[in-house]
């Protein structure tokens, strides 16, 4: 019990830091990182519903993420940057995600896990090809740049002082940028909370039961294929919503930010590092991974400069080799935390 508490404390600390991050970390890049962490926590948590809780291996999670992002992007670009078009684009993206998830689920969740994984891989490849081919609509490889709703514009004064200038609280301008950040934060926190409710509900126990013993789950009266399809749809629509939120924040949507397999691999790494089937681990995994992607290079630059006088070390620590070090860190994490960070803290190293 105390171990679970420790994991929750770490994850809640992360959420707490995210809540205050515009005040704690005021650089543009830092706010960028904080928003990305919030979105990826949701993305990874929704993937954990599949892989960690139900034992479904899917490679199409970025495709659903992309549906939501492109939904908003296309609506904003083709229509206007109003909330009406935002809602339209989000709903369209979520609807497409739900329909595609139902189709993939009903057609192929009956088959063996490996075939299902292959089918999701094929679907994700098709989505990626479509995004680059339908360049009239999607902007192709270049993606789409658009404006988000006016309330999020930097020039928008959320709060003003007596002179009519934008109010500063603790040195932070209360402008559209801060509104955009808190839009991202609260929608992501809400989605994360909803997923916690799902895994803590009777449905959550059924999902774990399917992972543990599919045949017996069916035997005591649960239609496994229906439950699998349902969780696949829940995960897909959540990913699509996360995509819509991220697209609103970035004001740019392209294959590299939403659809690429590189992101799919990131999600897999995050869920493994955090701990599969723990939900809270998603917060830990996503945070560590995003921080490493943004700051490992900087850290190595400092380290290389500090070791300048020593032979060989500066070469090894050169920022160009950051991926090598990321790989080493990943191997060490898996070695010392075989069940992921959250999983290993909760269950101990033996299991």
């Amino acid at each position: 019990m105390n171990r679970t508490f420790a994991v929750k404390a770490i994850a809640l600390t992360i959420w707490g830091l995210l809540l205050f991050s515009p005040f704690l970390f005021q650089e543009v890049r830092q706010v960028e990182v904080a928003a990305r962490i919030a979105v990826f926590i949701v993305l990874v948590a929704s993937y954990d519903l599949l892989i960690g809780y139900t034992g479904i291996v899917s490679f199409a999670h970025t495709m659903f993420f992309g549906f939501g992002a492109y939904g908003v992007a296309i609506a904003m670009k083709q229509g206007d940057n109003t909330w009406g078009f935002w809602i339209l684009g989000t709903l369209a993206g979520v609807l497409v995600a739900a329909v595609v998830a139902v189709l993939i689920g009903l057609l192929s969740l009956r088959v063996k896990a490996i075939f299902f994984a292959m089918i999701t891989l094929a679907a994700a490849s098709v989505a990626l090809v479509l995004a680059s081919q339908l360049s009239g609509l999607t902007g192709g490889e270049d993606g789409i740049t658009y404006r988000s709703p006016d309330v999020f514009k930097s020039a928008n004064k959320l709060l003003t002082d007596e002179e009519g200038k934008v109010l500063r609280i603790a040195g932070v301008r209360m402008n559209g940028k801060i509104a955009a950040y808190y839009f991202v934060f609260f929608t992501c926190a809400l989605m994360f909370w909803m997923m916690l409710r799902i895994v803590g509900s009777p449905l959550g126990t059924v999902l774990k039961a399917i992972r543990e013993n599919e045949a017996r789950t069916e035997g005591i009266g649960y239609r496994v294929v229906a439950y699998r399809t349902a969780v696949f749809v829940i995960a897909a629509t959540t990913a699509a919503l996360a995509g819509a939120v991220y697209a609103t924040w970035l004001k740019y949507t392209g294959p590299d930010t939403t659809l690429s397999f590189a992101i799919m691999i990131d999600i897999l790494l995050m869920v493994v590092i955090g701990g599969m089937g723990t939900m809270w681990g998603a917060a830990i995994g996503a945070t560590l991974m995003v921080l490493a992607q943004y700051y490992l290079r900087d850290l190595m630059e400092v380290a290389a400069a500090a070791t300048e006088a020593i032979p060989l070390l500066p070469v090894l620590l050169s920022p160009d080799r950051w991926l090598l070090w990321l790989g080493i860190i990943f191997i060490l994490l898996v070695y010392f935390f075989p069940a992921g960070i959250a999983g290993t803290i909760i269950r101990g190293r033996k299991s």
Partner: protein
Amino acid sequence: MTHPSLSTRDLTIRFGGHTAVNAVTCDFRPGELTVIVGPNGAGKTTYFNMISGQLTPSTGTVEKDGIDLTRMPASQRARHGVGRAFQLTNLFPKLSVLENIRLAVQAQAGEGRRFFTPVAKLTELTARAERYLEATKLADKAELPAAALPHGDQRKLEVALLMAMEPDIYMFDEPTAGMSLDHAPDVLDLIAEIKHDHTKTVLLVEHKMDVVRQLADRIIVLHNGELIADGDPGEVMSSQVVKDVYLGNAGELA
């Protein structure tokens, strides 16, 4: 005589050229405990699998209270009141003992689709699950993962899981297999209790003759996939055909 609650008609399954169960026609009635005996490979478990839905027969039908179950998936049969415990322990190893039982309780209560209410708030489900844990003397192990239980307790949990489904048809496949002598009576007492309810239909595959004598109202004998004897325990056990079958198979019934 009461109406049969469960019937199989000409139930047959072939695997390639091999007929594992051949045209078994049999009725089972509420309040009756039928023991199915037969040498290894006689088709007892295969027969069970076709009734509970793990296998679909090649020909023939399975009916419960007039409803044709033959093509239904196992989950739907379970909801129609056909419950099955397995020969090899078949639990949810990483879930706690309580969670194992609660799964069956919430399936029976039709609550498995609730996706937003915390489990902790559904106290009624937990209370029902705890009753089954007490009945099977597992209450003090409720929080342990099922995999951590000793074999005897896992067998008990298997029975508790079946009881928690509250079925009309109870199917036990060698419930005491591999259990030590001091644990087996617990499980047998539970089965006797179900039997004394007089409204439940109980099917039991069992090798141990003392168990058969203690519980059986009726015995049917399967041999090479065919039903070769059916009747009162004393009558069946002393019949020549049964003796032949078992003597030809190293006298397992000795």
